[in-house]
């Protein structure tokens, strides 16, 4: 029992859930496309915390949790690059990054 395990799993999960909720809220309510992207990043990192926490408290001695966290980080980096490129193009097309005003797909 070291200092890390002194913190119970519930604490990690609570932190992760809070981060995920904040990220989701950001995605749903912020108007700025970049802020929406930030929310997405928060949600990804909330998932990462879960991965690592379950790995640490899990019975398995394997590295899956850590490996998954690294993969998610890679994906998040790639996703950020693509999303920023899209946002840049959207700005050029619409002269705004306000997602409320980008509703070409309205039926």
């Amino acid at each position, binding site marked *: 029992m070291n200092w890390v395990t002194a913190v*119970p*799993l*519930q604490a990690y*999960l609570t932190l992760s859930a809070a981060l995920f909720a904040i990220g*989701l809220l950001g*995605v*749903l*309510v912020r108007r700025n496309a970049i802020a*929406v992207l930030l929310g997405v990043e928060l949600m990804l990192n909330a998932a990462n915390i879960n991965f690592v926490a379950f790995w640490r*408290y899990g019975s398995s001695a394997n590295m899956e949790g850590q490996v998954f966290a690294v993969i998610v980080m890679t994906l998040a980096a790639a996703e950020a690059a693509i999303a920023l490129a899209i946002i840049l193009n959207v700005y050029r097309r619409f002269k705004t990054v306000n*997602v*409320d005003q*980008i*509703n*070409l*797909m*309205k*039926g």
Partner: protein
Amino acid sequence: MPAGSEYLLIPGLPLLAFLLVAAFGLRPQDERAAPVPIIAALCGSLYLSLRALAHVAAAGPQEFSFPWLYVGTVQLDIGVLVDNLSALMMAVVSLVSLLVQIYSIGYMKGEIGYGRYFAYMSLFSGSMLALVISDNIVQTYIFWELVGICSYLLIGFWYRRPSAAAAAKKAFVVTRFGDLGFLTAVLLLSSFGLGIFGFTDLAHAAEQGALSKGLITAVCLLLFCGAMGKSAQFPLHIWLPDAMEGPTPVSALIHAATMVAAGVYLVARTYFLFALAPAALLVVAIIGCLTLFLAATMAVAENDIKRVMAYSTISQLGYMMMALGVGGYTAGVFHLTTHAFFKALLFLTAGSVIHALHTNDMWRMGGLGKRMPITSITCLVGALALAGLPPLAGFWSKDEILSAAWYSQLPGHWVFFALALATVFLTAFYMFRLWFLTFTGGERSEEARHAHESPWVMAAPLVILAALAAVAGGMKVSVPGSGEGFGELIRFGDEHEAVSRLAMALSIGAALAGIALAWAAYRANLVSPAAFNARLPRLYRLLKNAWYLNRAWELFAIRVVIAGSVLFAWFDRHVVDGMVNGVAWLCGAGSQQLRRLQTGQVQLYALVIALGIIAALIAVLGGAAHGLTFIGGGR
């Protein structure tokens, strides 16, 4: 050669001739050879049917069939049934066909569509023979419709003439009225009648009581509906006078001798059913009796030579039907046979006259006896045979019908006898009116003064048919090929064979009176028809307009059919279309509402996705307590 294939050749040969002519004989440069295959084929058919007649008269009925289709539990066969009735009928059909085709070579010479004419005619002959030889009712129906379409094609042969096209259409539609009954009868037999269609099997089943009385009566009445259409029985007779728009040999073959007799043949073929349905027989007798009398009255006031004969045909078909109805099976079929000869003869003589004069109006003829002696004499033979004077064919058969009505067990058979006797008088009158107007007296037109006798190719069939019409009554004693008398050959059960001498004398008397009146009115000018018409203008108009039955049908068509159509059109437009359009409208309106969901707002979509996931999680985990403890309790 498989058994029965010899019989298949009887209808098969003319059908092959049809294929041959249709494939190679239609171009103008090939047309001259078109009559050759059909005449050769009909010679073969005639020879084979006479052989078949001799064979079955000695050896009894022959039947061959093989399965054709299985529809559910119902099995449809194709087969031939050769018994005395069908063999005799085939001999008559192929003989008259052959003579009419030979005649057509002369009559149709130089016509546009010469090859087409012979192609249709051979298709007709083959179909008619196949109809006769069919061993089951479905096959009969198929060929029944085929002869109907041939009739349509040949009535409308001169299709550029609007009246011919209209007449063809009328014939087709009116007979279709009757055919609907025939088809319903077939369907009734297939759904309620054990699914058997073969005539032999049906006769067995009916004999053993496997078919209910009600079913038999219904089937008989419906079959008779079909027969009424085909055999031009009142009130479906209106198509036959108009059918005279076709070439005259067509009228002689199809609308006098063979196809119109198919209705009589159908009733005779299914007589084993009619014998068990007295109500249906009574209907047959009443309709036949009405037809024979009404049609004869219509013929009296007609001036078109062919239409007189058309009404006469209707009337004679009525005789046959009435004979079958009052129980004179032999008499009906005998009259069918003799009538085929003398009526074909009469039509061909009319054709000969029309060929020479290019008019149908009897008032533009006259005095042709000197210029066309063969036509005149053969027509006289035919007229005497039709009027029923001994020793010509019509006398013997008509006399048997009168006797059958005389001795009939039916209620009110005196009425049948009286009307039939009155019609003997009318028949003699209208026939000799025709003959006197056409062949005696002075010429009433320029064409009549320059008429010439027809070429031998037309005259020869006239002479042969006249000889047949004169001696066909001898079949009463001995049918050629079988050596038996007609009564022994064609019979149903033990029929009353007695011939009433009184009926015979009355019929001869009535015929002579009719001829005498015609002579007095149209030859000797002792009585004036014009004065008679002036005295009774209403009667004259009634007869002249054929009892206004055409008008009645038109009114029926306009009032009832159009009114019904309006109703159905409304139903179609508003209910049937309404349902279809309603479904489309519902989809459209629903989509209009649904498209509002598609806001284009990405965040709204994300919200819906999130809420959806939450709902899904609650649904999956809601009941699973251990899942909740896992999330809540850790390890």
